[in-house]
């Protein structure tokens, strides 16, 4: 019977678990852009300072950290001005943390919408990562402005060309972990609680407010893997090297980060695809 060919879609309990349906997401591209726009615009609606908040939050965080960690605790920064060091760390870290917390809330924050209408669920984590990327670019411009003001523009190195790779690695890790957590939260709400402080704690395991070198110097070289076990370590190293010209990049660790990103992303996608179709029954 020829009739079999005409079906546009079929709903059945079994579906490929790894497939991110790109053609479907492409079909909903307008929705993706509107979501990105919504996320960006709704943040500064009905505020006086509007988009300026994108600058204010990393600046205030960096000033505080500069005073507490730079002046009082006197943490080193591999020779770069400590303020620039934490500012660059914050710019990069805020991209990771907002993407991660955003995607991990996918199901719980959108259950109202998800419960009423169908669209590819993956649009939500994608749009979150994308709108955060937009914020990241704005904050990056802020960083470059400060580097220029402080007369250190010449310190920017050729490592900058790896920036897209860094972004992809961070996007994949935050999306992968975020999707895993979001899937688990639909059943076990504990993960919601866990995420809020886990992200905060994880910042201290990542070279945001201190350079990797303080651990490298303290640990014997056979234990250096412990530092690089955190896939974000080398990402931050490359970023510091690229914009501030300080620190040391371990190429193998960077390779590990890329591999880690791919694995966690695939895992996240698998779990997300499994959950997205029935989460309404359990949430």
């Amino acid at each position, binding site marked *: *019977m020829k*009739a079999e060919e*005409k*079906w*546009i*879609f*079929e*709903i*059945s*309990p079994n*579906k490929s678990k790894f497939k991110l349906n790109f053609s479907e997401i492409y*079909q*909903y591209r*307008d*929705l993706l852009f*509107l*979501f990105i726009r*919504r996320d960006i*615009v*709704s943040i500064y*609606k*009905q505020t006086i300072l509007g988009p300026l908040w994108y600058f204010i939050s990393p600046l205030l965080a960096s000033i505080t950290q500069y005073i507490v960690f730079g002046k009082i605790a006197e943490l080193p920064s591999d020779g770069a001005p400590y303020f620039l060091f934490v500012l660059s760390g914050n710019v990069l870290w805020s991209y990771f943390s907002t993407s991660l917390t955003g995607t991990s809330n996918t199901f719980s924050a959108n259950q*109202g*919408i*998800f*419960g*009423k*209408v*169908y*669209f590819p669920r993956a649009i939500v984590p994608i749009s979150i990562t994308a709108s955060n990327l937009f914020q990241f670019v704005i904050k990056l411009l802020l960083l470059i402005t400060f580097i220029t003001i402080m007369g250190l523009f010449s310190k920017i190195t050729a490592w900058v060309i790896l920036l897209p790779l860094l972004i992809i690695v961070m996007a994949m890790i935050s999306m992968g972990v975020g999707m895993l957590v979001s899937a688990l939260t639909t*059943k*076990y709400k504990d993960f919601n609680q866990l995420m809020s402080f886990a992200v905060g704690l994880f910042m201290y395991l990542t070279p945001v407010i201190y350079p990797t070198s303080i651990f490298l110097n303290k640990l014997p070289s056979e234990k250096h893997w412990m530092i690089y076990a955190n896939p974000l370590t080398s990402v931050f190293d490359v970023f510091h090297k690229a914009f501030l010209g300080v620190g040391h990049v371990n190429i193998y660790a960077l390779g590990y980060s890329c591999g880690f990103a791919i694995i966690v992303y695939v895992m996240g996608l698998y779990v997300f695809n499994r959950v997205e*179709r*029935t*989460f*309404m*029954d*359990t949430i």
Partner: protein
Amino acid sequence: MSEKDVILKVENVSKLYRLGTVGTGTFGGDVQRFWKTKILGQDDPFMKIGQTNDRTSKEKIDFVWALQDINFEVKRGEVLGIIGKNGAGKSTLLKLLSRITSPTTGSIKSAGRMASLLEVGTGFHPELTGRENIFLNGAIMGMTKIEIQKKFDEIVDFSGCELYIDTPTKRYSSGMTVRLGFAVAAFLDPEILVVDEVLAVGDAEFQKKAIGKMKEVSQGGGRTVLFVSHNMEAVLNLCNRGMLIENGQVQQIGEASEIVHKYLNLNTSSVNKDAKWSIDVAPGDSRAKLLQIKIENNEIVEGDDIFLNIIIQSFISNQLLDFTFRLYNVKGDLILEDFIIIGDIQTLQVKIYELNLSITKLPLISGFYYIDCWLGLGNVELLGKKIMEAVSFNIMPNKKLNRLSSAGVLVPFIEKTIK
């Protein structure tokens, strides 16, 4: 009709839900299930204890089949009304159809783009303006930006929210949100439109407008509409086919009027055509008692005569004894009242009176009706209490009238001459 015209095909669809809370206590069950099904490849050990979806059952069970073996087909241009009691599985079915959750077994195949309106105004972001939300909501339903742009003016016009279009939707009244949401969905051109009870929110004018629009979409546009409602009037008005769901199973599929008829008949458990009391407990007091009130018709169709049989015991004589009854429709509107004198100061005797009433050619529209009644003395005194909902009955649609609409209260028995 050929196979080609089938736009939606549902085969053996079932949906299993667990009862009680889904919480930490189930982690063991989850692990066990994962181990058995995914690692050992066995059948799901929890599937077997599913029970039929019967709300009234008191048995303690963990899993329930919200839907069980649902099979049906919908053809292009058809308007299928899905009716059933609360908890019969209608909304679950729509959820499966609109891909909000997936079935436990079976498959649903669709040959057209589907848009569902399970609740209007979903995806409205409160901070964004009406204009921005139209685009967002349209995109959520799968429209492209250009399509929305083309329809934008029509949507705004239909919703009647032009004045507020640049105001954030958080400032909208709930009625306005519904209007705007429905407008977006109605003008989005899906091949299959799934609508669930959304009309209940709007005012009468808007409901009419919305039903008109859906009719237009299905008749003019040749689109398919799946419509869930408890409003039999709307179902009869809009649908050409009907599907009755009961306890998660399809009871019957057929012509809309036939299904509505069947559904109203289902309610016979709450219909009581014959109320009888023994002399000790009968309503009234020591002076007179109502022993029985009975509707003698087997089935009542619009325009039928209705026969009432009433038995009253009088213990007194030579006083004014009356029997009063009131007929109400399902909404509680008083349709008619009658005051019947059983006997007066000259005629009343101590005896059992039998009263036969026939209400001829009652032109009431199909639906549920009930009667309150009581006995009175001397025009002023009530004997005992009023008997609320003493008897009740359903009036079935009159197929011979062959009318399209069933709005209003009265059946349009109208002699028509056109010159």
